[in-house]
């Protein structure tokens, strides 16, 4: 029977680390050890993703702080095609809803112990908020609101992925310790 499970949902769960086979031959143990070391390396680099997203967001914020003056102005034809910018109150309402739902989603992911990380997507959403405020000519008044929202969301995301990776590394380390114990015995 074909497996009908969604492959993307399967990605969310951390597969349990393979237990070292006590009866395994030394070459098997070496292969498991190599795989475990590789996984630890991957987890270590993954735990730094939060910091990269945070650095990217701070770079976008620095550009936004200068009202995007370092970027070339939008051609009038594109500006006209985009239409009238939404009001600052509408954008602020959207920002509150977005911040609230993002925090709830991250906290629920933390509770469920899921691996999923969406820090870079959040940098995109936050940059869009900067853009909306810029076109509504209200960026000066609302810059700090977007900045604090970004730091909060990305801070939570970073803490979540860092914590998740550290726990996974600890589990992998236990596997390595078991292999070492078996080797000595």
């Amino acid at each position, binding site marked *: 029977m074909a497996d009908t499970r969604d492959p993307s949902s399967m990605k969310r769960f951390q597969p349990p680390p393979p237990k070292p086979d006590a009866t395994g031959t030394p070459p098997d143990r070496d292969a498991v050890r190599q795989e475990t070391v590789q996984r630890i390396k991957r987890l270590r680099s993954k735990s730094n993703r939060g910091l990269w997203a945070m650095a990217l967001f701070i770079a976008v914020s620095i550009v936004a702080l200068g009202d995007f003056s370092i970027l070339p102005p939008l051609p009038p034809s594109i500006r006209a095609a985009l239409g009238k910018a939404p009001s600052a109150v509408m954008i602020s309402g959207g920002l*509150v809803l977005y911040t609230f739902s993002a925090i709830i989603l991250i906290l629920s992911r933390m509770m469920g112990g899921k691996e999923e990380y969406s820090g870079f997507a959040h940098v995109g959403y936050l940059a869009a908020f900067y853009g909306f405020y810029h076109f509504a000519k209200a960026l000066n008044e609302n810059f700090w609101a977007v900045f604090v929202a970004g730091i909060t969301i990305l*801070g939570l995301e970073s803490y979540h992925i860092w914590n998740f990776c550290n726990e996974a590394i600890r589990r992998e380390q236990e596997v390595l310790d078991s292999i070492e114990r078996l080797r000595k015995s």
Partner: protein
Amino acid sequence: MLKSFAAKATVPPAIAVTGFVVVCCILLYSVIKTDMLNDAIEHETNLAGTIVKSARYAMLKDDRETLRNIIDNIGQQKGVEHTRIFNKKGVIMFSAHTEDVNKLVDKKAAGCIACHTGPVPLTSMGRMEQARRYINEQGHSVIAITVPIYNEPDCFNAACHVHSPNLKLLGTLDIGLSEEPLQKTLGTLRGRMIVFCVMVLILTVGGVSALLLRNVLLPIKELANYVAAIKRGDANRKAPAYRDEIGELACSFEEMATRLKATQSEPEQLRSAEGDGADSRS
């Protein structure tokens, strides 16, 4: 430190609550500031309209002395930074600052450019477009309003006047009020919102941390001390008594320690029993 149980339990809610409350407060302050500024502009536009209506009769009668007095008196009012009337060509005819009279206004300056961008100047504007905000030469923040003085039938039909009926605009009243009272109110509001934010944060983060410490962390610490004592061989120690999951865990540990003690004492009892049997036989 961040790997501890206490940090895992308190850091995410602390970041979430702090961030969300701060974002909401900044947005609320921004909305209130915009509303207050719009109210101030509305109020100032009404004031400018009242001045134009008050000066209308003096203008109709070409009574320049009365008009000058009206402008001077308004200019002396506290909070009024400037009051002036300039004609269609942009020459200041009346001003509360006498040194400005007969000077030509720069059409590219803020407040003029809005109407004078195109080849033909605009003759009417929306209420909010009539306002401009700037810092004057004295370093004061000012909200200024320009109100057009239109040519009416009474104006071009009067015997003393020379205006053509084709003219739509005769001049402009420009009044600037200090932003200081508004900024003071906003400063007070800002301070109160910061105090409110800090109080909310202390209550939520502090409350969650205190409850967590009292109900989870301290019992776990007591349980850890109890298990450490058992490990050291202190089997007589009593398990911490709680009526929750930690209490159940402590009871299980206590039971385990009792069984361990019994298992450890069993060979000794057997040995002593064997010794007693040998003595009786001999």
